């Protein structure tokens, strides 16, 4: 029984190897860092009504494209989203554990886990995963965004692979395509037409699509936007009403109107 609604404890009692999700390489040879599938570019940024979280769709292993329809922006519950960069095998497992932990807590304790509590839960998973992260077989550097009901605002946090937690004031980025995005965001906030955080939803979405396109231009592992194949990034919006996925149709219209044509 989980006395404090701790799902991890319940799993441990069932004999689930929670503290060693993916064993680190033990020196048997045959392991090549380039064989590990990794997900690439994700970012979250604040805008007028809350937070937008976006991720490209590509998963790569070395210079091989593994998959072009990956969903790296995962809804953990009604008010929080985990955007993952790194090894999807570990990251998806973490997302599943978090999802069930939050559900279990809410249902057993009859109250929602606080936003801080959710952050701690993710940090703990990352900390327990440190050996695999250092070995390269389970490296995950996620961005966690959500709505803090107690404080009434959207929040963004990012983590290093060992579980250190940092709060982002305006935006957070992760993955191989992120330096480009980080650079543009910095430039826009400093010398652009006002801070990005003040954009309305439509302008913010256009900006997200442009950022993703720029990242794909300079990073071969980032999928970007492929209008021909109907491949758009996954974009989720977090506000007081909860998490909502921006429909691909809307992204399609914005992309063809405002990104392809230089309006």
């Amino acid at each position, binding site marked *: *029984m*989980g006395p404090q609604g701790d*799902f991890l404890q*319940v*799993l441990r009692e*069932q004999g*689930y190897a929670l503290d060693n999700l993916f064993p680190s390489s033990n020196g048997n040879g045959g392991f090549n860092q380039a064989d590990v599938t990794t997900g690439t570019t994700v970012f979250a940024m604040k805008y007028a009504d809350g937070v937008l979280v976006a991720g490209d769709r590509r998963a790569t292993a070395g210079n091989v494209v593994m998959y072009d329809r990956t969903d790296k922006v995962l809804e953990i519950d009604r008010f929080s989203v985990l955007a993952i960069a790194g090894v999807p095998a570990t990251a998806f497992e973490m997302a*599943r*554990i978090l999802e*069930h932990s939050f*559900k*279990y807590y809410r*249902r*057993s304790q*009859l109250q929602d886990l606080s936003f801080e509590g959710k952050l701690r839960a993710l940090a703990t998973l990352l900390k327990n995963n440190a050996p695999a992260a250092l070995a390269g077989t389970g490296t995950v550097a996620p961005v966690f965004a959500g709505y803090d009901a107690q404080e009434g605002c959207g929040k963004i946090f990012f983590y290093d692979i060992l579980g250190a937690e940092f709060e982002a004031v305006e935006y957070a980025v992760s993955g191989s395509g992120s330096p480009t995005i980080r650079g543009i965001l910095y430039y826009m906030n400093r010398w652009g037409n006002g801070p990005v955080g003040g954009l309305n939803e439509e302008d913010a979405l256009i900006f997200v699509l442009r950022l993703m396109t720029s990242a794909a231009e300079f990073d071969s592992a980032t999928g970007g936007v492929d209008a021909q194949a109907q491949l758009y990034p996954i974009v989720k919006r977090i506000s007081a009403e909860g998490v909502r996925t921006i429909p691909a149709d809307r992204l399609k219209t914005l992309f063809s109107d405002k990104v392809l044509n230089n309006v």
Partner: protein
Amino acid sequence: MYEEPYRWIEAVANRRTYLDDQFIQGNPLIAVSFARGILLLTVNRGTEKIYEIYDRIALGGMGHPADLEKLRYTLLDMAHVEGFQRSPSDVTASRLMKNGLAPVIKQAFEEIFKAPYITKVLLAEVGATQDRDHLFSINYDGMFEEQREFGVLVSSSSIRETLSQEWKAQGRPTSLQAAIEVSLRMWGISSLLQTDTPSPDEEEKGAVSAPTTSVATIPDKETIASRIRETLSRETLECVLLDRESGKMETYHTLCQAELQPLIPQSFVPVIER
């Protein structure tokens, strides 16, 4: 002294009498499956009796809150481990009942040196369509059964039988409002029959003179309405909808007082004395 078989049988029989007595003061619980989902309804005196177990599964209870809490945790653990290790669609009320609840309750009931669970439990699972809805109820002795469309927790099995007959005799609710109305009415009937049924002792005494008491008659409309009005004036109505049309993984929705107010038939609303 319990080594002798007949002593054991006697002890179990005593246990039944004791437990049956305990439930007479309890609040009945009604579950109704209709087009929109499953409605669970009861009234409480401060402790909730309806809980969320998993994405599509709710629990309704009658009896001692501490026992209910223990069983609730058993179900939560089982459901979440299963949903995590397999898939959320593998978590079913049927398996929770058969593998999770029934053995635990039966064992506690039959171990006569330990305390039994003073509780009856109903599990409701909402499906993609109404014919895939499931309602299971279990008695304090571990006997469980599946019910279609209508489920009830009430002090005795004879009242339960009467209610099932009554359910068959009436029209099916098509809207949430209709489901609330019919559930309240069934709740009122259960509550009246439960308190009007003579306790086992009295039944024995009265058996000689009036053997017809075993056939319960449905109280008239006004009696039911007045029982509901009287109860709602001092206790809290608790309503949960497992919403088939929620469009999300999670279907559990507690109807708050503001949502309930316009849905309760006027004749059931307590009159506020000024």
